[in-house]
C-alpha cells in the first residue's frame, strides 16, 4: 500500500498529539471522547457480565442454593440495568458513532464538541450513581421498575438507581442531538443524503429515538422516585394511582430503546457486508428507509409488553398489528444484506465472520419476536424464558455481535494496529457457538412454562438450564479473548495503514489513527456510498 510507509515515521495523530490525564479528561475531540466511552462501557460490560455469570451459576441447580433469593433478585436487576442503560444503549452510538460519524461525513468533529464531552461526564455521573446504589445494598425491582413494587414494597436502593439512569438519559439525549445536527449540517461537499453511509442513516434514526423517547423514561423514573420518597399517588392504587400507567410510560421509552440498541448495529452491518463482498449494498434506499421506518413504528408498539397486564382486547389488537408491521423493515434489511452477498467477491475476515453471526442470530431473534407479537401465543410465553431468549438473541446475538464486528472492523482505524486475525476468528466462532448454547435452550424452557426471574425452579427444567450455563462459559471465553488481544495489539499489533481492508468511505481516506482534525483537506465527495466499482483505493485517497 502506497501510504503504508508513512506509518513508520511517528506522524501526529489524535492519540499522540497530547499526553497526560488532563488532555484526555478535558478533550473535546470526538475520537478521544469515543475512547473514554469505550473504556467506560467496557468496565460496565464486565460488571454486567459478572452478574450474568452469577445468575447462570445459581441456575445450575433447581434449588436456590448458591445465593439467597434477595441476592438473586438483585443480581438479575443489576445485570439488566447495567447492560441496558450503561452498556447497550451507549455501545455502538457513543463509541463507534462518536468516532466515525464525523469521519464518515467528512467533518472535523461533531457539531457540539463540548456538549459531547458533557454527555460523557453525565454518563459517568449516572453510572457512578447507579454503581454506588448497587454497592451500598443493591436494587431488586428488575430493570423494569414495575410499580407498585418499586415505589412502595421494595426495601432496596431504588431511588439511587433511578437517579443514575435519569442522569445517564441526558447523556443519551445530548449524543442524539449531536448526531442529528452533525449529519444535517456538517456533511462534506458532495456528501448528499443519498451518498450517506448507512451507518450514519441508522445512527440518525437511533438519535431520533434518543431525543424523543429518553425524556419520557426520565420523567417516569422521576415519578417513581417521587412516589417512593413522598408518597404522591401516581402509580400505587392504594394512593389513588394506576400501576398500568407506569407500564405504558416505561415501555413508551423502553420499547423504542430496543431500536436505539439495534439500529446502530444494523448500520455496522451495512458497512461490513459491503466491504467484505466488495459490492454496493443491495437496495440502498430500502435499507436507509427501513431504519427510519423502524424508528417511527418503534414508537407505536409499546403495549405489546402488556398483553396479559389487563389492557383492553381492542388495544391489544392494535398493538399486535403494529408489532407485526415493525417486523417487516427488519426483515427487509436481512434480505438486502443477504442479497448484497450475491455475486460479490467475499472474504472471510473477522468482521465478516461476526457479521455472518449477526445475520443468523438476528434472524432468530426477529422471528421469535413474531411469536410474541401473536396475541394468543404471547399469553403463554410472555414473562417466561422465551422472552428472555428472544431479547438476548436481539440484544446480544444482534447488538453485541454487531458491536464486536464494528470494533474489529475499525480497530485498525482507531488504534493504527491490526489485531491477531487467527485469535479473532476463534473468538467469533466461540461467541457464536457459546451464544446459541446459552440461549437456544431458553426458548424451550420458556415454552415449557419456566417463568423468568425465578431463583429456584421445578427440577424438570434442570437439563436445559445446565446446557445454558455450559454455553455461558463458552461465551465468556469468547468475550475475554478480544479483550486480551485488543490490548496486546496496542503494543504488538502490525501497523495497519490507512485502509487495511481496502474499504471505501471517507474514514478510510485519512491515516490510521486519524489526525486530530480528521482530514488535512476537506474531502469532496463525487461518488455513491459503497462504490466499490468505480473507486479503486488509489484514486480516492485524500490529502497525501
Amino acid at each position, binding site marked *: 500500500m502506497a501510504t503504508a510507509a508513512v506509518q513508520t515515521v511517528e506522524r501526529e495523530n489524535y492519540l499522540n498529539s497530547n499526553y497526560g490525564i488532563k488532555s484526555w479528561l478535558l478533550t473535546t475531540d470526538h475520537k478521544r471522547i469515543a475512547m473514554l466511552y469505550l473504556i467506560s462501557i467496557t468496565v460496565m460490560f464486565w460488571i454486567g457480565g459478572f452478574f450474568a455469570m452469577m445468575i447462570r451459576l445459581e441456575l445450575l441447580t433447581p434449588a436456590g442454593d448458591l445465593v439467597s433469593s434477595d441476592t438473586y*433478585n438483585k443480581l438479575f436487576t443489576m445485570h439488566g440495568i447495567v447492560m441496558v442503560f450503561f452498556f447497550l444503549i451507549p455501545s455502538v452510538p457513543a463509541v463507534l458513532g462518536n468516532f466515525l460519524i464525523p469521519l464518515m461525513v467528512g467533518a472535523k468533529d461533531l457539531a457540539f464538541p463540548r456538549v459531547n464531552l458533557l454527555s460523557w461526564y453525565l454518563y459517568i455521573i449516572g453510572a457512578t450513581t447507579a454503581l454506588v446504589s448497587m454497592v451500598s445494598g443493591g436494587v431488586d425491582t*428488575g430493570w423494569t421498575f414495575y410499580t407498585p413494587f418499586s415505589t412502595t414494597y421494595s426495601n432496596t436502593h431504588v431511588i439511587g438507581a433511578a437517579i443514575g439512569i435519569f442522569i445517564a438519559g441526558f447523556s443519551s439525549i445530548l449524543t442524539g442531538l449531536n448526531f442529528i445536527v452533525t449529519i444535517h449540517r456538517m456533511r462534506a461537499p458532495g456528501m448528499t443524503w443519498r451518498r450517506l453511509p448507512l451507518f450514519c442513516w441508522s445512527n440518525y434514526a437511533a438519535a431520533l429515538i434518543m431525543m424523543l423517547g429518553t425524556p419520557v423514561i426520565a420523567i417516569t423514573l422521576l415519578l417513581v422516585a417521587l412516589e417512593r420518597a413522598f408518597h404522591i399517588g401516581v402509580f400505587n392504587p392504594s394512593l389513588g394511582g394506576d400501576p398500568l400507567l407506569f407500564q405504558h410510560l416505561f415501555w413508551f421509552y423502553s420499547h423504542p430503546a430496543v431500536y436505539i440498541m439495534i439500529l446502530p448495529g444494523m448500520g455496522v452491518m451495512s458497512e461490513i457486508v459491503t466491504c467484505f463482498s466488495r459490492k454496493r449494498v443491495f437496495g440502498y434506499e430500502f435499507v436507509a428507509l427501513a431504519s427510519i421506518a423502524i424508528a417511527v413504528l418503534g414508537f407505536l408498539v409499546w403495549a405489546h409488553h402488556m398483553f396479559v397486564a389487563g389492557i383492553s382486547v381492542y388495544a391489544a389488537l392494535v398493538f*399486535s398489528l403494529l408489532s407485526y408491521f415493525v*417486523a417487516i423493515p427488519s426483515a427487509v434489511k436481512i434480505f438486502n444484506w443477504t442479497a448484497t452477498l450475491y455475486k460479490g467477491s467475499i472474504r472471510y475476515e473477522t468482521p465478516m465472520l461476526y457479521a455472518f453471526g449477526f445475520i*443468523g442470530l438476528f434472524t432468530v431473534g426477529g422471528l421469535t419476536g413474531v411469536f410474541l407479537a401473536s396475541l394468543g401465543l404471547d399469553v403463554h410465553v410472555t*414473562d417466561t424464558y422465551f422472552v428472555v431468549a428472544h431479547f438476548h438473541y436481539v440484544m446480544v446475538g444482534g447488538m453485541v455481535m454487531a458491536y464486536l464486528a464494528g470494533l474489529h472492523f475499525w480497530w485498525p482505524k482507531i488504534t493504527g494496529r491490526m489485531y491477531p486475525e487467527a485469535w479473532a476468528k476463534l473468538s467469533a466462532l466461540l461467541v457464536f457457538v457459546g451464544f446459541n448454547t446459552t440461549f437456544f435452550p431458553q426458548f424451550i424452557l420458556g415454552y415449557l412454562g419456566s417463568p423468568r426471574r425465578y431463583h429456584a425452579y421445578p427440577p424438570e427444567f434442570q437439563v436445559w438450564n445446565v446446557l445454558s450455563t455450559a454455553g455461558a462459559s463458552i461465551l465468556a471465553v469468547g468475550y475475554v479473548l478480544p479483550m486480551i488481544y485488543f490490548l496486546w495489539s496496542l503494543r504488538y499489533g502490525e501497523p495497519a495503514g490507512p485502509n487495511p481492508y481496502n474499504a471505501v468511505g471517507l474514514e478510510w481516506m485519512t491515516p490510521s489513527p486519524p489526525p486530530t482534525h480528521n482530514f488535512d483537506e476537506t474531502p469532496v465527495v463525487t461518488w455513491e456510498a459503497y462504490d466499490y466499482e468505480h473507486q479503486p483505493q488509489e484514486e480516492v485517497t485524500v490529502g497525501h
Partner: protein
Amino acid sequence: MWKNFPFFPEQASAMAWQVDGLYFLLVAVSAFFTLLIFALVLYFAVKYRRSVHPHPAQIEGSLPLELTWTLIPLGICMVFFAWGSLIYFQEARPPKDAMEVYAVAKQWMWKFEYENGQRDINELHVPVGRDIRMVMSSQDVIHSFFVPAFRVKADVLPGRYTETWFRPTKVGTYHLFCAEYCGTNHSAMIGQVIVMAPEEYQAWMNSGGGGGPTGSLAANGERLFGQLGCATCHGLETQGRGPNLAGLYGKPVLMADGRTVTADENYIRESILNPGVKIVAGFKPIMPTFQGQVSEEGLMALEAYIKSLSRPQAEGAADHRPPAPDESSTK
C-alpha cells in the same frame, strides 16, 4: 432418555391445542426462513469467495425483489395476526355459565375462594370439563396467574379485578406459577392446580377440604352487606337513597353525566371503594367510601352476593346456614 429433555408442556385445557397449533406453524415458518437465510448466506459465501470470484458484479437493487420480500412476509404475518387474535379473543371472553373462583394474590401466596365458601391456599381444585372463570385481585404488588399446562396467564393487579378462564380437559396436578416478578420469594409463589373428576370434586367440596366453609360466598357477602349497613340505602325493599341492586350485575347503567357503564365486577368494586367517581342518574352522591373497611376477601363476598341478586331465583341468599363468626369483613 428423552424424558429428561422435555420439549412441550402438557396439554390440559381446551385452549392448549389451539395455542400449540399456532406455535407449531410459527416454528415451521420460522425454521423455513432461518434455514433459507442460512443457506443463502452459506451458498453465496462459498460460491462467491474471493479466490474463485475476484470481480464482483455491481447490482443496485431490484424493486420487484424488494416488494417480494416486503409483501410476502407481511402476508404471512397477517395470517399469524388473525389466528393469534382469534385465540386471544376466546381467552378474553369467558363463557357465560362458567364456574367462578375468586383469587387473592399477595406476597407470596395464592388464596382461592369457591362459590360455596370453600377456601384454598396455593392449591386450586377444579373439576375436569367445566369452564372455570378466575376473578382475581392482588393485596399488594402485581402478580400473574400462570398455568403452563392450560396456556393461560393473566396479571393480577392491586386495586382492580382481572379475569381469565380455562376448561381443564385432563385429570391431574399442574404447576401454578406467579409470572410477574413480585419480590423476595417470587419463585416460591407457586402452587398446584388439581384437576379432579366431577364426582371426586364434589366429594372434596362436601368434605370441606379446603378450609371449612362458613356458608356460601354469596351468603357471606349478604351478611357483610348487612354488617356494613349497605342495606340501609340499597335494601331490596326500600326504594330509596341508593340504587336497587337486584338484577344489576352485567347490565348497562345510566350515569348522571349521561354515560352508560356496564355494571361489571370492576364497576361494583369502584362503587364500593370510590363511590364518588360514577354517580348513577337520579341519585345523589351521598355514599361514603368503604376504602380500608373491607378486605379483598370481603369485597369478593360482596361481589358474589350482588351477582347472586341477578340470578333468577336469587340462589345466593337462599343458602342460609347458621351465621358463623365472620372473618372476612375487616382486617
